[in-house]
């Protein structure tokens, strides 16, 4: 098992396609073993005021007693070969439909917030990974506990898309 960060999140590019947008994250692996990294977002959070997109590719934020505990599915995984660079492609919807909490609405009415994440100018990425693939152990710990144990190392990075978008204009 890994004991320290070995995956560096180097750079990010984004591409608009017809019905989604693609974030291409360039990463580099500094050890001589293949690393297996989450390659699908578990949480997508967007602040339209600051145009900041948070892509959470791990399950460490989920509480131990959460209703999600045994519902969490095995994530998609990208292999990054030892001592090499790789690319993690995240195919994201252009607009996220986020249901507001009862605390936000007062519980009276169902409200959905449409988040145009394609407009993001800042992207924060957090990715969990390990030097062996995840394998589920039936009858052992719950899904969340197994995923947290496996994806024990997280690399984080912040990227500025605003400059890239400006350069393209």
């Amino acid at each position, binding site marked *: 098992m890994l004991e320290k960060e070995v995956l560096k999140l180097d750079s990010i590019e984004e591409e608009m396609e017809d019905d989604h947008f693609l974030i291409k994250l360039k990463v580099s692996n500094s050890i001589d073993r293949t690393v297996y990294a989450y390659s699908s977002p578990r949480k*997508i959070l967007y602040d339209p005021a600051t145009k900041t997109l948070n892509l959470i590719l791990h399950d460490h934020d989920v509480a131990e007693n959460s209703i999600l505990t045994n519902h969490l599915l095995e*994530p998609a995984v990208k292999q990054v070969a030892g001592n090499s660079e790789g690319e993690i492609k995240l195919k994201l919807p252009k607009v996220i439909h986020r249901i507001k909490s009862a605390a936000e609405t007062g519980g009276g009415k169902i409200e*959905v917030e449409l988040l145009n994440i394609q407009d993001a100018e800042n992207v924060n990425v957090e990715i969990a990974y390990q030097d062996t693939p995840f394998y589920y152990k039936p009858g052992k710990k719950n899904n969340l506990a197994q995923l947290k144990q496996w994806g024990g190392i997280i690399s984080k990075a912040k990227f500025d898309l605003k400059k890239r978008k400006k350069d393209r204009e």
Partner: protein
Amino acid sequence: MALYMARDDGTGSFFPDVAFIDLFRISNIDTGFGETDNAADPKGIITTYARTDGGIPALRLDDLVNNLTYTSPPDIIVFAVRGSFTLSDGTAITSIAGIAIPVGDSLNPTTADVVTFYDSSECNGNGYIVDMEGGGHTGFPPPVILYHELAHCFHFVTGVASTEPLAEADENDMRDQMGINHRDASSHWGTCGGGAESCCVVASVTTGSPFSKEVNELRNIRDNLLRQGKVGEEFFNSLHYSYYAFSPEVCRLMGTYNYLYELVRIYFVVPLIMGLKLIIDYTKNNNDNLFNTLKTQFNDENINNVYSLEFIKIMRYYISSIKNGKLNESEMFSELSKRGNINGLGQLAEYLRDFTENDGYIKWALFDVADMWTEASGMFLSGIDEAEINVSLKNKFDNWTAEVPVDKVWAELSPIEAQDELEKLELLLKSQTSREKFARRLTASFSKHENVVRQWLNKK
């Protein structure tokens, strides 16, 4: 209490028509199932049901719609969503497939209703899969996801402690109605179609799919034979760690020399599986007539058509060249050369030799097993008699099992735990000779277990 379908609120977030279809399927296309849309009702479109179908899912739906077994429960609202949906905390629906949320949970957007969200997009078209009863994987289509979540809803409103095994057992009623495979109710594993479970990357690549028959067989062996007890679990973890240091280079070579895909499959993957089956037959099934097992294997045309005596001889040559590192120095070199460019085979042989020299787990668990099966097959195809083959295989397996790597986990075990683990190992170490040999190796590394080992050896 009523069962609602969330109405399209103008944001394109909810799909009541889809929810209706999935509920209609749950009713088994019972024309008694319907809806009433009162636009003034903020919760959504209320369902109605005058049941005529007698199936279990229809009965459950009737109960949910018409409160047959409980009084004054909260309403249930069904939200059919798509892949772009997230819960209030940002959790992507594609990371859970569906969820049922009781009243009072922070993720519930209401304060008085039970809610369920389920992904009707099938993970943006990739499909969801779950573990299948009996081994392998099976699909998790939207009506089944919804039925599973409604099982949780039913537990919430009737005050039953809602667990995954309960919901999964209920889910199988819906699967029966749809005529699809049962889910393994003891496993909560699932994934979105593309994010497949990693079992054996080499087997997945060479057989064309992580869900091929060969990979499912390996997965089954892993889960039902290897991971027994603390020692078995740690042995598997060590093997897993070694394997994923070993396999990426094999995959790289296969990517460079495309012809290696098929060769790796028939030289290693299939012999490994066949060898493991022989070992399972000898150990778990207590079968001493392995000649018959081999005969059954060779009755399969997939084995018989590929593994002729001539081909086995070529395989034996290749395996011995891995052991001695001398691929080029043999009369068989010209035989292999006839198959075209063999640079990749040479590199693979060298890599396997280096790895198996340095890693006891890969050598014991993978290479030696494939080697034993190939040798046994050669004897079988050469017409050597049944008794001789049985004695030879028994001796080989006994020698092999006695060489099982002694994992460092033994250092942590108490005497009682060590005794328990030794008893579990009796399945593998069938003969007194193999037990004595293993015992010597164990106590050489972990002398603290000498007393326990002595008692274990003396008990028969």
